[in-house]
């Protein structure tokens, strides 16, 4: 991991100065603001089994599918298209350091995007305070849900980085990321909604399905339940994707 720190600071600086990041951030906050607004509206119209923060995070897949690919698509594909990756590889910096620096930079940006959502809830709390002597927002739900986003982000961002390694076209990288994340999220959601328990012939699927229930993980985290299994899933998934990304870069050069 030679020169990891230098590369990471460079990537973060590039992200900070890139119009792409700011445009994506604007898009993300607009989307999250809109979702939050509708969740608040729903809760104010009639009692719901969920809080407005929970309601907002139930739709986490929307920014995941629409925003995350925009964040990761250029990381490798753009460098490969411009040829700057080849010249980077002539330095003593290792490929693993390059991949990890790009991943961590994208993950930190993703985390910062989501932290940008907190002021929405603070503003609502500040304006409305409490309703019927109950706090409008329970900070523990917000902290738990954000923890899930950050933890699952390890895998989701790594998928984006891997897809970006596979092509010279940023658009194609974004599309690949979108499809993979859609598959992963939909598979989790679908497996959760299917009555697998009652289908004996699908009994073998019970165990793996229990690991992939993305929405279940969100509920657990938001409820403050820290299960080690999703942690293992996201961390090993992250390591696998980044390992494959290193191999992909090695293979292409």
């Amino acid at each position: 991991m030679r020169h990891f720190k230098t590369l990471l600071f460079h990537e973060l600086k590039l992200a900070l100065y890139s119009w792409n990041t700011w445009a994506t951030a604007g898009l993300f906050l607009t989307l999250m603001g809109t979702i939050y607004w509708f969740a608040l509206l729903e809760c104010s119209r009639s009692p719901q089994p969920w809080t407005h923060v929970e309601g907002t995070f139930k739709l986490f897949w929307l920014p995941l599918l629409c925003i995350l690919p925009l964040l990761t698509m250029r990381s490798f594909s753009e460098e490969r298209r411009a040829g700057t990756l080849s010249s980077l590889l002539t330095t003593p910096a290792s490929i693993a350091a390059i991949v990890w620096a790009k991943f961590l930079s994208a993950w930190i940006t993703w985390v910062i995007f989501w932290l940008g959502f907190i002021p929405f809830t603070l503003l609502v709390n500040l304006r409305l305070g409490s309703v019927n002597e109950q706090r409008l927002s329970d900070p523990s739900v917000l902290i738990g849900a954000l923890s899930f986003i950050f933890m699952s982000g390890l895998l989701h961002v790594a998928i984006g980085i891997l897809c970006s390694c596979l092509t010279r076209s940023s658009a194609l990288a974004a599309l690949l990321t979108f499809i993979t994340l859609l598959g992963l999220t939909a598979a989790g959601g679908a497996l959760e909604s299917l009555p697998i328990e009652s289908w004996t012939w699908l009994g073998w699927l019970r165990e793996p399905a229990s690991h992939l229930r993305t929405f279940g993980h969100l509920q657990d985290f938001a409820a403050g339940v820290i299960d080690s299994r999703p942690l293992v899933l996201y961390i090993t998934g992250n390591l696998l994707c980044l390992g494959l990304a290193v191999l992909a870069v090695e293979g292409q050069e």
Partner: protein
Amino acid sequence: MTEPTTQPVAAVVAELLTKRYGSLTAIEDLSFTVAPGEIVGFLGPNGAGKSTTMKILAGTMAGTSGRATIWGESVSLNPAAAKSHLAYMPENNPLPDDLRVEEYLTLRAKLKNVENKDVQARVEKVMIDCDLIRRAKGRLIGHLSKGFRQRVGIADALLAQPKVIILDEPTIGLDPHQILGIRDLIRSLRGQMAVLISSHILHEVEQVCDKVVIINRGRLVAQGKTEDLRRELLPNAVFKLTSNTPLAQLLEICLQIESATKIEIQESLDGGWVRYQIAIPTSSPIRENLAAHLIKAGVALREIAEEHYGLEDIFLAATRRTTNDGLKN
């Protein structure tokens, strides 16, 4: 990382390098060396395999077989150590458009193991050497002209004072003034760094390089000092002379002076004058005073001059030889 304690005999070694893309062979059994401090021109027609060879030596592409070392370190077995001695400027010199020149060079210096305390000084030094300090220092690379981009690439190559520099077409797209500047810069590296430089401008290579390596169709066709190659590939000295002596008579006179002489008519001029081309072996003793011999034999001469063979002629002779061999095979 292992640092060789003594200077290796060769700064760059390419030994039986081969690169195949499926059934297509880009280079085959290519072997040559570059001594420390030597400037070597790497020549070949388009598609000969120059860039492929340079990429393999720089470690950005794996060869199919063979061995490549940089300053004694194997490029494939110990890439980090090999890269720490090497700077490589690829063809077309890809640079990030969204960084400023100074910013980019600072990043590259850090990545090339320049000590933190020396980074600023090294960046300033190469910007002065490459004439970037006044007009390009704070500019975005994407806004620079082709000439300045090339200078940034060369400045990057010089940053870490590597033992070996590989430059793939460093003067492509530059105007004559810029070419002169880059040529002087490369010349100033003689004795300090081993430089392997590919270029289509043969005159430039001849001016700068101590030695040339010529490849064609992925195979080595000639290597050595320009003078040695001239002797090997162009064994005849060629004279252009204008005379009114008929061909048969001139041939007879010439054969009496030098038995291995070849004559051909180049052009018939007004008033019975003819421009001839006479070839005699380079080693012939009469080469130095051919004009005197001809006048003494009664040949009327209006002009006589020996043709000077440049690297272009050597290059053409070497590549033609292999092309002909290929056709025969």
